[in-house]
C-alpha cells in the first residue's frame, strides 16, 4: 500500500494541468492499469474472499461483477464530490457509510427484481461492503482526485475485478459443472459422459484457477513482489 500512496501523490500533482482531453493518455491509464498491470485481484491481491465464493457459476458471478462495478464507480464519485467536506478524522466511517448505502441499494433491488440471484448470492452482496478493493480505491484515489478521474478509476478497478472473477468462474463452471451460463456445453458438442471435477465446485478450485491466472499474468508482465 505504501508504494501506492506515493503514486497517488504524483497523480494529484499532474491533475493541475488545464483543459485535459476527456480520455487523455493519463486518464486512459486509470482504466487500463487495473485491468492488467495493477489488477486489484491478481496484483494487489484484494477482494480474494468474494472471488473464491461467488465464482462457482457464470451467472451469479456476472451479477456480482455488475454490483461491484456499480458500487465502486458510484462510491468513488460520491466520495470524490464530497472529499473536501469530509472531516479527516471520520473519513473512514464516511467512506463505509457511502459504500454500505450503495450495497444495501443493490441488495434491495436484487431482492425485488431477481430473487433467484438474491438467494444465490445471499451474504456475498452484503460483503461487498468489506471488499478491500472498494474501500482501497476510496482511500487511495477518490479522497484526493476530481470526480471524473475517480469515476474512470472506479471503472478501471471494477472491470479489473470483474474480468478476473469471470475468467475464474468460466473455468470453474466449465470443468466443475460442464456448462457455461447453465448451458450444458459438453452435451451440446456430443460429449455426454464428461466427468465433472468436484474440486472445481469447491473453493479450492478457485484457488487453483486464480493461482494459474496470476502465474500466467506475472510471467507476461514480469511483475515480482517486492
Amino acid at each position: 500500500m505504501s508504494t501506492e500512496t506515493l503514486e497517488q501523490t504524483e497523480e494529484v500533482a499532474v491533475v493541475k494541468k488545464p483543459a485535459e482531453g476527456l480520455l487523455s493518455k493519463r486518464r486512459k491509464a486509470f482504466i487500463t492499469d487495473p485491468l492488467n498491470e495493477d489488477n486489484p485481484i491478481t496484483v494487489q491481491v484484494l477482494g480474494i474472499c468474494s472471488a473464491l465464493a461467488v465464482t462457482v457459476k457464470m451467472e451469479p458471478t456476472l451479477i456480482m461483477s455488475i454490483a461491484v462495478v456499480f458500487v465502486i464507480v458510484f462510491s468513488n464519485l460520491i466520495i470524490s464530490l464530497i472529499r473536501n467536506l469530509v472531516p479527516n478524522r471520520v473519513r473512514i466511517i464516511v467512506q463505509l457509510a457511502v459504500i454500505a448505502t450503495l450495497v444495501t441499494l443493490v441488495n434491495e433491488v436484487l431482492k425485488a427484481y431477481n430473487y433467484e440471484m438474491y438467494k444465490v448470492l445471499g451474504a456475498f452482496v452484503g460483503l461487498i461492503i468489506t471488499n478491500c478493493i472498494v474501500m482501497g480505491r476510496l482511500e487511495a484515489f477518490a479522497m484526493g482526485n476530481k470526480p471524473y478521474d475517480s469515476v474512470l478509476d472506479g471503472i478501471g478497478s471494477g472491470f479489473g475485478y470483474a474480468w478476473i472473477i469471470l475468467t475464474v468462474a468460466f473455468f470453474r463452471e466449465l470443468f466443475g459443472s460442464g456448462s457455461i451460463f447453465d448451458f450444458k456445453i459438453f452435451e451440446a458438442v456430443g460429449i455426454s459422459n464428461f466427468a465433472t471435477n468436484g474440486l472445481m465446485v469447491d473453493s479450492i478450485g478457485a484457488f487453483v484457477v486464480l493461482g494459474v491466472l496470476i502465474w500466467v499474468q506475472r510471467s507476461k508482465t514480469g511483475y515480482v513482489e517486492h
Partner: protein
Amino acid sequence: MQQSNTYIIIFTAVMTVIVGGLLSLTSQGLAPAQKKSIELDTKTQILSSVMDREQLSKMKPDEILSMYNERIASLVVDINGQIIEKDEKGEDMVAEEVSILKNYKKDPSERQYPVFKYMNESDLNKVDAYIIPIYGAGLWNAIWGYVALESDLNTITGASFDHTGETPGLGARITSPEIQNRYVGKKILSDNGEIISVNMVKGEGNEGLNEHQVDGMSGATITGRGVNDMLKAYLSHYESYFTTIKNGATAKL
C-alpha cells in the same frame, strides 16, 4: 485540514439523515416488488415438488402464478389434523402466508401446519398430491423444502429442498434435481401403516436400497441426516391430518 468537533458532529448527523432517508425510501418503494418475488419464489418451490422443473423454469412468472391459482388448493391444520380457519386476529388463514420458520420455533403441538393440495387437471375435486412444507437444521444453517405425497399418502411424488448455508458442492447439492429425484416413488409407511419416513443413507453409490432409503451425498452426511430428521419430524406432525383424510376417504367409499 483539521475540523472542529462541532463540524464533525454536524457532518455525521446530516450524513446519517440523508443515508437513512434514502434507504428507508428505497425499502418502502421496493417492498411491493419484493413481496411479489418472495410469493413467486414460494409458489414456484411448492409447484416444483410436483412438476417437472425443466418445464417450470421455462414458464413466465404470470404463468406460474395462474397455474398455482388453478391447481393448488391450500389449507392449514393443527397437530390434531383439524382445519384452522381463522388466525389469532380472527382473519381467514392463508396457508401461503404461514411462516414455517416462526412455527418451527414453537412447540410442535402449537404450530400451524399448511397443506397444499395439488388438484387433478381434469377433475378439480380430485387431489393428485398433498404437498407439505418441512423445515429443519442442516450442517451450518437452516434447511427446508416441500414434500409431495401421492393421494395414497404413502408414495412420494416429489421433493424440493432449499438451504441457507450448506457447503457448495457438498450439502448444497440438496437443491439439485439429481438429489431430489432420488425421493420419487419412495414410500413413507411401513407395511402396517407406521411412519418410518425415507432415510438418506451414508455414502454415495449405494446399491440394493429399499423403498425407505435413498442414496446419500458423498461428503455431506450431516446435511443428509438433517434432511432425514426434518422429513421424519414433519411427516409425524402431519400424521393425524393424513389419518383424517384416509378415514374420510374410506367413509365415502
